[in-house]
């Protein structure tokens, strides 16, 4: 009697399992913030409605530890199907062999022709193969405080780096706690250093920020010294001493409180400024160009990849495709603060034609001035470089190391890392 009951209940249990066969996809994001999580959840729930029986479990680790978590998860084959990968960690994850080659999927993907030019190429930094599909791009532009610049008689944002330096210097008055340039000394300042430094060049390799077109390391070029001198001057003459210890949060804090009205930042800064600063008080302009008349921005991007051990790869691809469809992509970029990867979105949604996007649009439309290039992200020493770059730059700013010394150190580092 007892046995029969047991068998029966077991059968019922198994049967109910078969009927309600539910597929769960596990998905992890990297650039977590409470706002971003809400936006993602909305997109996920819409997708679930369209695909009954599919559930997506979103994992949102704190940003600073996210990569370490992903490394550990994939190295032990924890259940994970869709992984967010940022440009800076793409090669390391791909080299672990835990990301699925997406080329076969891309070959069959109709919407790929609408992607912004260069987006797919930048996704192929590891061995020429795409292991992720970018879902948004990030490009730095110049955020400036209209109200404060006007107070000092400036109607327009600066157009060149030198103009910016003069403006920032004129504004700076420590006794009033007014400074010019919103400097970043801590927490991955690499892009800030390079944007100023390379604006003194006119022949940067379009595929490598650290090489000139004839294949020489930029650090050994006399123009690098000029550029770096300007960067140091921006710190010494126009930025608060304290900013050597500033990361993203302090930068935004100083901008929002008006202490430093000139800030280089990514579009996701908009998301934070939305609550803290009235719209009419700031504007966004194209990056100032150097004496060469050029500037060398890079595309930053993040996107979704599929783990090589996922059991539901096709379904995961369905989700990625859905995420990059123009409506969803528009919603995503608008709410979170990023630039869409689908060209159609810029025409479809008036938001991306508003004055906030003027700076970026101008940069995209003037390739002769803004020559997009890329970082040597596939190099295994890239992570180590960020640490060294930050620490040695701080030494220069503090006068503990000369510009010549640091350039030599950087050149040696990259020679040893096999860049040339």
């Amino acid at each position, binding site marked *: 009697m007892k046995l029969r009951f047991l068998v029966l209940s077991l059968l019922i249990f198994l049967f109910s399992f078969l009927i309600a066969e539910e597929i769960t996809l596990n998905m992890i994001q990297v650039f977590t913030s409470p706002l971003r999580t809400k936006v993602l959840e909305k997109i996920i729930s819409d997708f679930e409605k369209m695909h009954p029986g599919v559930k997506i479990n979103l994992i949102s680790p704190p940003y600073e530890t996210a990569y370490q978590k992903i490394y550990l998860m994939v190295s032990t084959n924890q259940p994970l199907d869709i992984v967010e990968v940022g440009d800076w960690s793409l090669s390391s994850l791909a*080299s672990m062999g835990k990301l699925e080659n997406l080329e076969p999927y891309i070959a069959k993907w109709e919407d790929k022709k609408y992607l912004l030019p260069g987006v797919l190429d930048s996704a192929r930094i590891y061995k020429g193969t795409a292991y992720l599909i970018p879902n948004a791009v990030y490009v730095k532009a110049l955020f400036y405080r209209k109200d404060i610049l006007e107070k000092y008689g400036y109607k327009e944002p600066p157009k060149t780096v030198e103009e910016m330096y003069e403006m920032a210097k004129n504004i700076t008055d420590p006794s009033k706690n007014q400074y010019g340039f919103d400097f970043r*000394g801590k927490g991955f300042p690499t892009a800030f250093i390079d944007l100023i430094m390379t604006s003194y060049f006119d022949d940067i390799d379009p595929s490598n920020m650290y090489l000139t077109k004839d294949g020489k390391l930029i650090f050994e070029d006399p123009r690098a010294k000029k550029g770096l001198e300007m960067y140091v001057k921006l710190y010494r003459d126009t930025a608060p*001493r304290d900013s050597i*210890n500033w990361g993203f949060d*302090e930068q935004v804090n*100083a901008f929002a409180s008006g202490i430093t009205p000139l800030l280089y930042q990514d579009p996701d800064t908009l998301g934070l400024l939305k609550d803290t600063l009235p719209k009419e008080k700031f504007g966004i302009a194209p990056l100032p160009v150097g004496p060469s008349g050029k500037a060398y921005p890079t595309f930053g991007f993040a996107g979704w990849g599929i783990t090589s051990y996922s059991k539901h790869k096709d379904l995961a691809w369905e989700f990625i495709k859905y995420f990059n469809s123009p409506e969803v992509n528009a919603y995503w970029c608008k709410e979170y603060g990023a630039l869409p990867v689908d060209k159609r979105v810029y025409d479809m949604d008036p938001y991306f034609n508003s004055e906030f996007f003027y700076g970026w649009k101008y940069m995209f439309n003037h390739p002769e001035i803004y020559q997009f290039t890329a970082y040597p992200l596939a190099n295994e020493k890239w992570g180590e470089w960020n640490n060294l770059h930050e620490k040695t730059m701080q030494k220069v700013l503090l006068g503990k190391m000369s510009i010549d010394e640091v350039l030599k150190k950087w050149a040696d580092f990259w020679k040893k890392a096999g860049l040339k």
Partner: protein
Amino acid sequence: MRLKRFLFIFSLMIPTLGLVGILSFYPTLKGIILSFQNYTVFTFNRIEFIGFDNYIEVFEDPVFPEIVKNTIFWILFSVLFQFLLGFSLALLMWKPFRGRGIYSGLVFYPWALSGFAIGLVWSWLLNGQFGVVNDLLMKLHIIRNNINFLSDPKKALFSVILVNVWYGIPFFAIMILAALQSIPRSLLESADIDGANSIAKLFKIVIPYIKPTIVNTILLRIIWVMNFPDIIYGMTRGGPADSTNILSVYMINIAYYESNFSKSSAVGVIILSILFIYTTFYLKITSKGEFEI
């Protein structure tokens, strides 16, 4: 009978020993092994033993001597001031006064905060530009120019130590206060009769009586402070220009920036060895190997 005695001891010890063995010692062994390998994200599929290469790389790092120096400063001054101020606070609170319960809650709460939160909040408070501490000191006319607590390499280490002292006072005060309460009243009263003054009482009776507590608390505290990167990580990440870089922060930076888990394990093993040698000496000097808390 002997078997029964053994079983009794064994069954009471095994839960703790099991936990410590499985969750601390076994992973430590694994971590030591890891430090002799080349485990980075790039070599994930070809992990092999590389002998002492990671250790050599660490010792040959040009900033290593500075990091060791900073670590010694960090530990020495943190623990010294935590102890002195904690001891003073305990003495001040020894004699009951009205509202002592509430007072102790308000003065001991830093102990209940997490290191990460402390680092974060204090780096905000000590910001050289819009920090509240600078603002207050200005308003009170104590300073005329902002102090760059965290960006001036000469002051940064001092600032993070200050925060660590703030965090560590309560622990010492609680331990010492508890020990003070245990001094038998008769002992103090007999000193009163002998006409001893307060200072004499402090050095002749109080300190000798609570010496085991002081010795052990300092021992443990030094171990913990050595292994406590949270505050510095939250405030300066070891900067500017390595002026606040200590061994445990160095270890995290290697794991985070370089994703080189073997090299960071090597730093961990170095920390562990230093602490082991230190503890052995400390115990040799202060007691005859008999500990209590």
